[in-house]
């Protein structure tokens, strides 16, 4: 027998206590939706996990109204310290239920349990802990002595990091004093619904967090709802454009975190073995379903052959298969639709003359799978060097000088992330200054921390999430004055009333 064919080590699903069907979480309760309910499936087996309600326009109305009530009557009147207590409580509950959440996320999304257990869920807890600490310190956020919450936030999140993106959205919103209506992606609603249970468990006041499920139509109704003060979206650039159009001229604040085509730049003096690891985690982490993935490898020409050779050897040790097996490195592609897109772009890559390579690996017969793939001989004009593939596909390009590296790295409509690999710190800093990307990692890749702002340039979106910047996206600086004609339903009215009382 071969030792490297590690015996199966499946994580048990016994800890999961799922319902057969889930309603919408509105005003602290699960209620029926008025749209046609749909099933969420496990992308690794195509088996149905649970039925999920679909919110239509009337459900969106109810959810926004619940959020507005909670904002006016409870959340905006509560002290920052008390809001912080709820957030700390949520963070602790996430930690307590970490294994359950990890299993659910892996099941619903298709990503390896190793990642949900070691990355997604610990970061979710970290995000809530971090913003819980901010809740009573808003006057130190650099936005004046009394920054104000915006009101009701409409949040639409993607399927690649379902619960983590929820945390990125909800934690700062709540810490700043807003209430939220959040819509998870239609292929990955499960952990958001478990999170709704956590909100109940934490005794969070009804309506502060509302979670409505559904597809694009639901999202459209939510972001264009009249009584929403803030829209936050993470997802594809085309949908982001549509949202920007819908929100234009309404006075809603908007943050968009969209696509990317990150350049991972490797110089010939880099620590080679660690660079190989960084390239692997840059593009094969989460099956490449990462908006900030290092999907373009820019390698200095004189080490191209050796680096590619080492990379191939390393890829041969990656294990593709059952996401719930603790030894799985590459899980399933999230949906058939996404798989089709990855396949189509990869075929275009071949047609355009790039050289395609994948390690020998057995693809399971059910579910959606795509072997880790490297394209060499890629030119900047190839579509696989320009379009976001959002899959485990790496395009390898070369450069000769630091000048050329910067030019090629910046030559993209996107600007979310970049990586630099060199042992020479002066070069690293000089280069980082010139890369037009929201995040530049040096000698590492795909590392996230709640204290660090994250966001893009150009078509990768605007606004920042994480850190103090992420908080500012949910606050109005205290220099701002409420319009005199503001109606009774104005988000600030509760706040103003409270201030009047305080005086």
């Amino acid at each position: 027998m071969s030792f490297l064919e590690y015996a199966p080590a499946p994580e048990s699903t016994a800890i999961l206590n799922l319902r057969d069907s889930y309603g919408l979480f509105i005003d602290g309760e699960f209620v029926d939706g008025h749209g046609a309910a749909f099933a969420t499936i496990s992308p690794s087996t195509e088996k149905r996990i649970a039925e999920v309600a679909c919110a239509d326009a009337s459900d969106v109305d109810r959810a926004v109204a619940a959020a507005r009530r909670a904002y006016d009557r409870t959340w905006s009147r509560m002290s920052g310290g008390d809001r912080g207590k709820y957030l700390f409580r949520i963070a602790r509950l996430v930690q307590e239920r970490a294994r359950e959440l990890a299993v659910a996320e892996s099941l619903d999304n298709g990503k390896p349990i190793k990642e949900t257990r070691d990355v997604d869920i610990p970061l979710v807890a970290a995000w809530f802990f971090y913003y819980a600490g901010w809740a009573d310190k808003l006057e130190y956020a650099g936005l004046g002595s009394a920054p104000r919450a915006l009101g009701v936030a409409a949040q639409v999140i993607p399927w690649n990091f379902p619960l983590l993106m929820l945390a990125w959205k909800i934690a700062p919103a709540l810490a700043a004093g807003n209430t939220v209506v959040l819509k998870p992606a239609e292929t990955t609603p499960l952990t958001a619904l478990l999170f709704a249970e956590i909100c109940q468990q934490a005794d969070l006041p009804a309506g502060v967090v509302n979670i409505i499920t559904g597809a694009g139509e639901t999202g459209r109704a939510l972001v264009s709802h009249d009584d929403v003060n803030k829209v936050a979206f993470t997802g594809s650039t085309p949908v982001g454009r549509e949202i920007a159009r819908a929100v234009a001229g309404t006075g809603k604040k908007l943050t968009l975190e969209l696509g990317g085509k990150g350049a991972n730049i490797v110089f010939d003096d880099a620590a080679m073995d660690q660079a190989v690891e960084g390239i692997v985690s840059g593009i094969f982490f989460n099956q490449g379903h990462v908006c900030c993935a290092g999907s373009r490898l820019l390698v200095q020409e004189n080490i191209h052959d050796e680096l590619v050779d080492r990379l191939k050897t390393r890829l041969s040790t990656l294990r593709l298969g059952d996401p719930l097996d603790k030894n799985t490195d590459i899980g399933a592609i999230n949906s058939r639709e996404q798989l089709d897109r990855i396949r189509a772009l990869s075929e275009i890559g071949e047609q355009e003359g790039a050289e395609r390579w994948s390690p020998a690996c057995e693809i399971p017969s059910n579910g959606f799978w795509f072997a880790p793939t490297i394209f060499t001989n890629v030119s900047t004009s190839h579509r696989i060097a320009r379009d976001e593939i959002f899959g485990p596909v790496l395009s390898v390009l070369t450069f000769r000088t630091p000048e050329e590296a910067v030019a090629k790295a910046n030559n993209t409509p996107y600007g979310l992330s970049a990586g630099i690999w060199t042992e020479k710190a002066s070069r690293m800093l000089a280069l980082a200054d010139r890369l037009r990307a929201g995040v530049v990692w040096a000698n590492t890749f795909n590392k996230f921390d709640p204290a660090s702002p994250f966001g893009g340039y150009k078509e990768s979106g605007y606004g920042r999430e994480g850190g103090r910047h992420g908080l500012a996206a949910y606050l109005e600086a205290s220099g701002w004055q409420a319009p005199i004609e503001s109606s009774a339903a104005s988000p600030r009215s509760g706040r103003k009333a409270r201030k009047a009382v305080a005086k």
Partner: protein
Amino acid sequence: MTIDHPVALAPAERAVRLLGGDLTEKALRLHLDGLAGVDAVGLEARAANLATRSIKTSSKAWALDTIIRTCDLTTLEGADTPGKVRSLVAKAVMPDPSDPSCPRVAAVCVYGDMVPYAVEALGAHHGDPDQGLVSVAAVATAFPSGRASLDIKLADTREAVAAGADEIDMVIDRGAFLSGRFGLVFDQIVAVKEACRRTDGSYAHLKVILETGELQTYDNVRRASWLSILAGADFIKTSTGKVSPAATLPVTLLMLEVIRDWNRLTGERIGMKPAGGIRSSKDAVRYLVTVAETVGEQWLVPHLWRFGASSLVNDVLLQRQKMTTGHYSGPDYVTVD
């Protein structure tokens, strides 16, 4: 900057092949200084990642047997006696008296003066661990500090080989290495290798101990690994077990990467031995995973991979018994030595 006076080095075969015929200290230094750096954060992250592999059921059973089969059962104490060594040998030959299917360890590792007792006690079981027999390994060259003249180190080595040691575990001169005298360290390894030569022309296997806990930086560990291999090491070994930290997973991973690179370059296979500080089966299994995913599982045989440990075997035996019987026993169900 001055131009080094070209100091000729002992013409070790591997170094001559790689660095050219006029082997000088300068050529060696240029090679070692030209090696790619090691990023400590990345190296440790990779080791931590390898440590998350979950080895269960049949894989675990194979791993436990492999740990025993590749273990150098060790006693290196000032208080060692012939009796203690005989007792160690008995354990090496039959690690688990309650289970005859339990494999033997690869070698017993003792001080040079204990070699005759080990050889005598092993009797017919003495031989090649790849054939299921047990080797005798001796530490030499003024182990563990290495602070003695070259003549004494060589005499120490020759004596152990003459007494029947199959393997010599030497220490490098860390003082010389840290002060940049790479040539001196190199020449000493070449000389000790020559002292491993038996009268029939064959050689005792040479394991070169870097004492990574004293080299401090990963860059140093990488240079010392290359230097040792170039000078003729059959194995590179992390530690004496007398300095803390001894073996760690990141250091072992790094040394295995050098071994992998040497193999890519020349096709030759160099052995690896982490020693000291590996006490639990769980820990040891992580090392096996690291070997398999870095150089390949073909390295998990006694002539290419060893654990240097004294207490590890007992924990492995407890785990092994648990796998057969389904429940844990306790320390009284394995022998003290």
